[in-house]
C-alpha cells in the first residue's frame, strides 16, 4: 500500500514536470505552428544560468528569477534571429532547424558549463513528510512543483481566452495574412509567443533540476515525454497538456515500479499509439468541432 502510494506520488510530481514542458510546446505550437525540439536545451541553458548564480552565493530565488528572465530573452532572440528566417509555408524546415538548434545548444553548454554532473539545490526540504509512522513521498519541493504548474495553466488559459494579446497571438498563428490585414503586428506576436514558451520551458527545467543532478543532457528525457504529453493532450490545449503530462507521469511511474524500468520508454510509446488510434487529434483536440 505504502509502495503504491509512493509510486503514485512520484508519478504525480513527475507528471507535473512533463506537463510544464508540454505547456511550453503547446504555447509555441499555438503561437507559430512549430514543434520546438530545441525547447529542452534552451531550458537546460537557463537552468545552468540559475545554477551559476546560486553557486556564486546568491539566493535560490534570485537564480530562479534570472533563469525565467533569461528564458524570456533567449526565446525572443531565437525567434527573432533564427526561426524568423525560415520559410513558414514549409512544415518540415522549422522542425529540422529546431533539431539543429538542439545539437548546437547542447555542445555550447558542454563547452561553457562542462559536461559533468552537478547537483542543483532545492529551496525546500528534500525529506518526505511524516504522518504518524508513514512517510509521504511528497517533499516541500514536490508541492511547489505541482502548485506552480497549476498556476501557469491558469495564467495561460486567462491569457489566451480573456486578453487582447492572447487573441492576437492566436490570430497570427492561425492565419498570418488575415491577422496582418486586421492590424495585428504578427512578427511581434510570434516573438512574444516564443518568449513566453521559453519562460514556461525554463520553469520546467528548474522544477526537474531542483533536488537532482544537472548535466547538459538532463532535459533530453523530458523532451521526449513532454512531447508525448503534449500530443496526448492534442498539442493545442493547455489543459490537455497537463492532463497528458499527468497520465504519462502516473502510468510511467507505475510501469517502472511494478513491471520494470527498462519498459518505461516502450510504455510511453504504447500509450501514445493507443491514444492516437482512438483519438487521432489527441484527447483534448478541438479540430473536429471547428470543421463542422
Amino acid at each position, binding site marked *: 500500500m505504502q509502495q503504491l502510494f509512493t509510486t503514485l506520488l512520484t508519478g504525480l510530481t513527475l507528471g507535473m514536470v512533463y506537463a510544464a514542458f508540454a505547456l511550453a510546446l503547446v504555447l509555441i505550437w499555438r503561437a507559430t505552428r512549430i514543434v520546438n525540439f530545441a525547447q529542452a536545451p534552451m531550458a537546460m541553458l537557463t537552468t545552468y544560468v540559475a545554477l551559476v548564480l546560486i553557486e556564486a552565493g546568491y539566493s535560490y530565488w534570485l537564480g530562479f528569477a534570472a533563469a525565467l528572465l533569461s528564458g524570456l530573452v533567449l526565446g525572443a532572440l531565437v525567434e527573432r534571429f533564427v526561426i524568423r528566417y525560415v520559410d513558414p509555408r514549409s512544415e518540415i524546415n522549422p522542425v529540422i532547424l529546431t533539431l539543429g538548434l538542439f545539437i548546437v545548444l547542447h555542445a555550447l553548454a558542454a563547452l561553457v558549463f562542462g559536461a559533468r554532473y*552537478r547537483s542543483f539545490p*532545492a529551496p525546500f526540504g528534500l525529506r518526505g513528510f511524516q504522518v504518524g509512522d508513514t512517510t509521504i513521498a511528497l517533499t516541500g519541493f514536490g508541492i511547489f512543483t505541482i502548485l506552480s504548474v497549476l498556476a501557469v495553466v491558469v495564467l495561460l488559459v486567462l491569457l489566451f481566452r480573456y486578453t487582447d494579446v492572447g487573441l492576437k497571438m492566436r490570430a497570427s498563428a492561425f492565419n498570418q495574412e488575415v491577422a496582418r490585414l486586421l492590424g495585428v503586428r504578427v512578427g511581434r506576436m510570434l516573438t512574444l509567443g516564443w518568449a513566453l514558451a521559453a519562460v514556461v520551458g525554463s520553469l520546467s527545467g528548474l522544477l526537474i533540476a531542483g533536488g537532482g543532478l544537472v548535466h547538459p543532457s538532463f532535459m533530453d528525457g523530458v523532451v521526449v515525454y513532454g512531447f508525448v504529453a503534449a500530443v496526448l493532450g492534442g498539442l493545442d490545449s493547455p489543459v490537455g497538456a497537463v492532463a497528458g503530462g499527468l497520465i504519462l507521469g502516473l502510468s510511467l*511511474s507505475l510501469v517502472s515500479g511494478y513491471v520494470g524500468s527498462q519498459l518505461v520508454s516502450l510504455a510511453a510509446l504504447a500509450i501514445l499509439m493507443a491514444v492516437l488510434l482512438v483519438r487521432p487529434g489527441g484527447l483534448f483536440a478541438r479540430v473536429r468541432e471547428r470543421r463542422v
Partner: protein
Amino acid sequence: MRRWSRSAVVVTAMVATGALLASCGAGGEREEAPAEGSTVGITEDTVTIGGHFPLTGVAAAGYSEIPTGHKAYYDYVNANGGVHGRNIEFVVRDDAYNPTNTSQVTNELVLDDEIFAMVSGLGTPTHGAVVDFLNDEKVPDLFVSSGSLQWGDKPKERPFTFGWQPDYEIEGKILGDYVKKNMPDAKVGLFLQDDDFGRDAEKGVRRFLDDQIVDVQRYTSGNTDVAPQIAALQASGADLVLGFTTPSYTALSQLVALRLRYQPKWFYSNVGSDPALVGSLLAQFSEGAVKGGAQLLDGVMTTEYIPGTDAPEDPWMRLWQKVWDAHGDGEELTNYRVYGMSQAYTFVQALQAAGPNPTREGIVEAVERAGGDFEGPALAPFRFSSDSHMGVSGMQLVELKGGVGEELTPVLVSDIGDAPIDEDDSAASDSPPENGIPDQETVE
C-alpha cells in the same frame, strides 16, 4: 558489342588473376615471417597507444578524469627516458559512453592513428561493441576499464583482450560471503544496473545469499527516476541494500532514500562509491537535509582494491601525488586519476616485459607469461595466464567514515565460478620502486 564484351571478359579475367596472384604473394610474405609479429604503432622512439573514454555525456562524471591520470604517468615515464628508449604517446578519443560512437572512434584509432594497442578502453556496453573488431584485427586490447567477465573468462575466443580491475562476480562473491557470515539475519535487497554489471554481481552475491535476498530492483542507465525502485525495496522490508551502481546512481538512490525516509544499511560497489565524487554530487543539498556530502555516505560499505586518496600516506599515493604534481593538469588528484595512473603503471610493466623490440603478439604473450607476477599498486595479484585474462583477483571490504574507508576484512582473493575465497595480503605489501617506474624483465 559482342566483341567488346569478349575483350571485357579477357580483361576481367586478367585483372582477377593478377589480384589473386598478388594476394597469394601477400599471404606468402606473411607466412614467411610469423615470428616477427606486427609492429604497427612502434617507431624507433615512440609507441602510440589509444583509448576510448566518455569525456562528455552521462558517464563523464569521474570517468573523464581517468585518461588524465594515464597521460600524467606516461609523461612522467617519458621524462625519465621512456620504455626501452621509446616515448609512450596516448591518443584519447571521446565516445560519450555511446557504443555507436565507440565503434567509430575505435576505427579511427586503429586505422587512422594506427595505434599499437588499445589501452583501458572504458565501459561494458561501449567496449563490448569493439572487442571482436580488435581481436579480428589482432590489436592488443589491454586492461579494459570495466569489471565485466567477458574480457578475461574466455581467452581462447578473445586472445588479445585483458581485463584489469577485479570483476563484478568476485566482488559479489566476497561481499556475499561477508554478509552471510556477519549479518546472517539481514534482509537483503539488491539495487542493480540492468546490464552485465548488475548481472555478474548478482551471480556472485547469490552464491552465498540466495535465501537472504528479499527483493531485486534494476534501473536502466539513462532513466534518472529511481523512486519506484527504491520504494519497492522499502516495501519489501530490506534492511541491507547492496547497490551495484555508477556514481550518479549512487547519489540518486541516496536522494530518493532521503525523500522516502528509508534508512537501510547500504553497500555500493567500488565502481560507484567514490566518496569524493558522490559527496560532491550530494553536497549541494545541505540547505535541505544533507550537511556535508561525504557524511551522507557514513556507514556505507564498499570495496577497495587499490590505494586511493583517502590514504595520502600510502607509498603508492605519494608516488601518484608526485607524478600528478609534476605532470598533471593542475586540477586536484582524484581517485579516478589514481585509477588511470595505476592502469598506466601496469601497461608500462607489460611494455617492458615485451622487450626492446615489442610486437603486438609479443606483448600479449608477455602479459600471459609474466602478468601474474606483476607487482603494482593493486592489493591482490592479477590472474593473467594463458588460461585466464581476468584482472586483479581480490579486494577488501571497508566502511566509509568521513570519506575514509575503514577496514572490515583483510584482502580477500577469489576467482570466478566456485573458486574459494581466501585471505591473501601478499600483493598488498608491494611498494613502488625508488624512481617510480617499474623494472620488469623482458620475457624471453
